[in-house]
């Protein structure tokens, strides 16, 4: 096993185990902390896939913002240890469905010819500046994402509207 493979298996184990831990926690802050561990593992994946920009953004956006937001929400709704039933009455059905989805995904992917492709040699260092041009430049022959970027910008206004909404509520 190469060092890369060792890191890959450790990261996979961390991702899956902490995801399962997250789902089964009663204490929601603990669940959020396990979510953070999972997200960190995904960041390691991005590093292994040589998408260093996304790895850093994963930490910045997911751990730095989204996870903090979730923990805030847990604390503000005072539902840290939610009493009573953890799972709803369809929990066993949901478990069966999730496993079926996993098997279905696996079967669907395994017949795909590229399923066990090996990574080609590539210059991934240029990806960051290519990202910049991909986001903002419209070029012939290149895929065009300018519209998507602008839509993202508009989409980001929605949380601001949400902020106004939350701020204006009466105590």
């Amino acid at each position: 096993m190469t060092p890369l493979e060792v890191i890959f298996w450790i990261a996979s184990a961390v991702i899956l185990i902490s995801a399962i831990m997250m789902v089964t926690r009663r204490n929601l802050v603990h669940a959020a902390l396990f979510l953070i561990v999972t997200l960190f593992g995904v960041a390691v994946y991005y590093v292994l896939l040589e998408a260093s920009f996304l790895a850093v953004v994963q930490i910045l956006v997911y751990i730095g913002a989204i996870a903090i937001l979730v923990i805030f929400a847990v604390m503000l709704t005072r539902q840290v240890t939610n009493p009573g039933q953890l799972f709803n009455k369809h929990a066993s059905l949901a478990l069966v469905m999730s496993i079926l989805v996993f098997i279905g995904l696996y079967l669907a992917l395994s017949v795909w010819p590229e399923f066990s492709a090996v990574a080609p040699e590539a210059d991934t260092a240029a990806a960051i500046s290519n990202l910049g041009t991909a986001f903002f430049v419209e070029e012939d022959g290149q895929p065009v994402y300018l519209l998507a970027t602008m839509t993202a910008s508009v989409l980001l206004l929605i949380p601001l509207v949400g902020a106004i909404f939350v701020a204006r509520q009466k105590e």
Partner: protein
Amino acid sequence: MLDNWMFIGLLVIVAVALPTLPIVVARILAPRKPNAQKMETYECGMETVGETWVQFKMQYYVYALVFLVFDVEIIFLYPWAVSFDQMPLLGVIAGVLFIFLLGDGLVYAWRKGALEWK
């Protein structure tokens, strides 16, 4: 590039181990004589009343939301700044427009009073 990240990975291990070490040393060296009063929650000598989660302002959450917006904006701004030399005028204007839209949102939130600390 993975070589660089290997250093970061090792630094993660070291940076966790280094602060853990004094805690472990302190656990060995420091005295431990717990008693019921010492282990109480500190509240200026009073016994703590009620649960910890008492009324918190929604305002905290509002700031977190506005922060989230700008944090995500970063994804687009940094690659834009890095690849500015390859940018035609259209790209420059698109980027400025992108920032303008978000600044516009901030001004709107401001006018609607979301940024007031109450």
